[in-house]
């Protein structure tokens, strides 16, 4: 059958070619869809580090996705209203520079991941799933009941944030920004797989006792992976907020956590390009099934069931008929 590297090349080529075709054909909506795929894939690449490499089944990655989104939204909102975010202990101004927003989004998501991870990693197995879910729900309810930034209604900011030298309102230019970030994250996870850190992480998934006997404590390794994973997903959240120019508690909800998980699993757990395949397939299905029936999510559910029960290894697994690496 097909080699995985060939499938990867085709996936990446498709992600670049489809928007270019749409640009030529004058279909800006398709570019927006492709941008959504790139952003969701980025979130999936983040989760894949924890889930695929580390075997940490986090059902709470919406927390980081939403936090990244809220950072982008809150900073942009303060900039638009010319109000500093805080004046105590020192003044922090709002901003609409993506280059300033991204590090803050990643920092906030990373801090949250460190805190949630440190607590959740005390547990394992099914507890870990439930605990990560519960912490994400905690942030969700906080966002709903905290009225300062829109509460349940969410927060709109009418102008997309800026990037030096680019017009972010042009769909294709914004897509290019997202694509470059996705490529960066892919390169990072490729490098992590080949690093000593990545090997230890995968070793801890396969057999924690052996890793311990080699003198490595899995806790630190897993926590580091969880934090990096949260940061990447947080960056994706900031981009998603910019795509919609809107953030709402929906980004923090457990449906979002489930969807990020679906991107990873539809594509193939632990595969480098899995999230691209998964996010692409998800958006495609949403679009196609959405046209068939108002109740497309039921069809999605049935399809998902079939994938879990009969097509283990996801899309890339089915196409390549290869066992996953790592």
């Amino acid at each position: 059958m097909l080699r995985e590297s060939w499938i990867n090349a085709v996936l990446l080529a498709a992600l670049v070619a489809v928007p270019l075709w749409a640009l030529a054909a004058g279909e800006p909506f398709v570019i927006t869809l492709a941008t959504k795929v790139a952003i969701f894939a980025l979130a999936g690449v983040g989760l894949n580090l924890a889930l695929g490499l580390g075997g940490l089944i986090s059902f709470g990655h919406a927390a980081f996705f939403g936090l990244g989104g809220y950072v982008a939204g809150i900073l942009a909102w303060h900039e638009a209203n010319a109000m500093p975010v805080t004046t105590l202990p020192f003044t922090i101004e709002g901003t609409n520079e993506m280059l300033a927003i991204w590090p803050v989004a990643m920092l906030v998501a990373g801090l949250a991941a460190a805190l949630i991870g440190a607590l959740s990693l005390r547990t394992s197995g099914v507890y870990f799933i439930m605990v990560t879910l519960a912490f994400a729900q905690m942030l969700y309810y906080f966002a709903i009941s905290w009225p300062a930034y829109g509460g349940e209604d969410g927060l709109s900011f009418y102008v997309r944030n800026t990037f030096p030298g680019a017009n972010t309102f042009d769909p294709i230019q914004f897509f290019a920004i997202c694509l470059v970030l996705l490529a960066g994250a892919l390169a990072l996870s490729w490098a992590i797989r080949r690093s000593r850190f990545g090997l230890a992480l995968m070793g801890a998934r396969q057999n924690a006792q052996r890793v311990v006997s080699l003198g490595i404590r899995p806790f630190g390794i897993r926590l580091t992976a969880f934090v990096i994973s949260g940061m990447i997903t947080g960056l994706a959240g900031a981009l998603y907020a910019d795509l919609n120019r809107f953030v709402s508690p929906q980004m923090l909800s457990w449906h979002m956590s489930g969807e990020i998980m679906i991107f990873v699993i539809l594509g193939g757990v632990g595969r480098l390009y899995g999230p691209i395949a998964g996010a692409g397939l998800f958006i495609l299905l949403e679009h196609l099934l959405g046209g068939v029936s108002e109740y497309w999510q039921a069809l999605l559910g049935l399809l998902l069931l079939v994938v879990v029960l009969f097509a283990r290894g996801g899309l890339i697994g089915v196409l390549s008929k290869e066992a996953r690496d790592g």
Partner: protein
Amino acid sequence: MSVMLLIEQVLNGLQYGVMLFLMAAGLTLVFGVMGLINLAHGSLYMVGAFACAGVAAATGSFWLGLAASLAAAAAAGALVEVAVIRRLYDRDHLDQVLATFALILVFSEGTRWLFGSFPLYLSVPEVLSGAVTLPGGIEYSLYRLAIIVAGFAVAAGLFWLIGRTRLGVRIRAGESDREMIAALGVDIRKLYTVVFALGAALAGLAGALVGTIQSVQVGMGEPVLILAFVVIVIGGIGSIKGALVGALLVGMTDTLGKVLLPVAFGTVMDASDATAIGSALASMLIYILMAGVLIYRPQGLFGEAH
């Protein structure tokens, strides 16, 4: 704040906790016996509520509706177990999470297709409407009081079932060694279906009882499901006793936090800020409780170390 109001809130907390127990008991039983994490448990709660609302609307009898909720949720549970869940016992947790998440999508959209997006309403049966005066002159809703009594009765029945009956012996044996009891001639597949249907019926009952207080709508099961997870993480997965203690703890903490925190903050800041901060913090309180329990005992209050 008056003592009367406080006692009323304690009763509300008790009622909430009892509801959570009905949900958590099935979840923890299914996990304990079959090792399965079932996200679709909230859907069974929803099925129960819709069955009760539908039958009550058609026949005019709440009690028929209640019976229908038990029957419908148990039937839905048994059906799902035979069709899907059975294939998941040997899989890892990731597959279980994903497959049951998919089941939620199917259940939610299926219910929306059948009943539409508008919420249904269930009215309290005649016998239980109105208020009672408790000792001390406290007026309290008779229906809520009935829920508390019914919840504790179900809890007692469950402890009896697990601890004192032949089925209970098999369930406990299934928890500790499934190969062994299969070798002893117990039909383990049938046992699993029965346990799953039992958990589903409890969830359906909870849905029907709560449906009378809140509205019956698609997605109603999900917030309760996540709270039930918090409950069993606090109580220890697989432990019915833990589920009861955890449920009461969570019910009390949530209800009292929502009432007391804004008041407490009100003593140090102005009223509108106090309400905002107090209620935002109150919504996080049970998760903070869970984090506290995890630091103190990662396996939960009544869980066995793993």
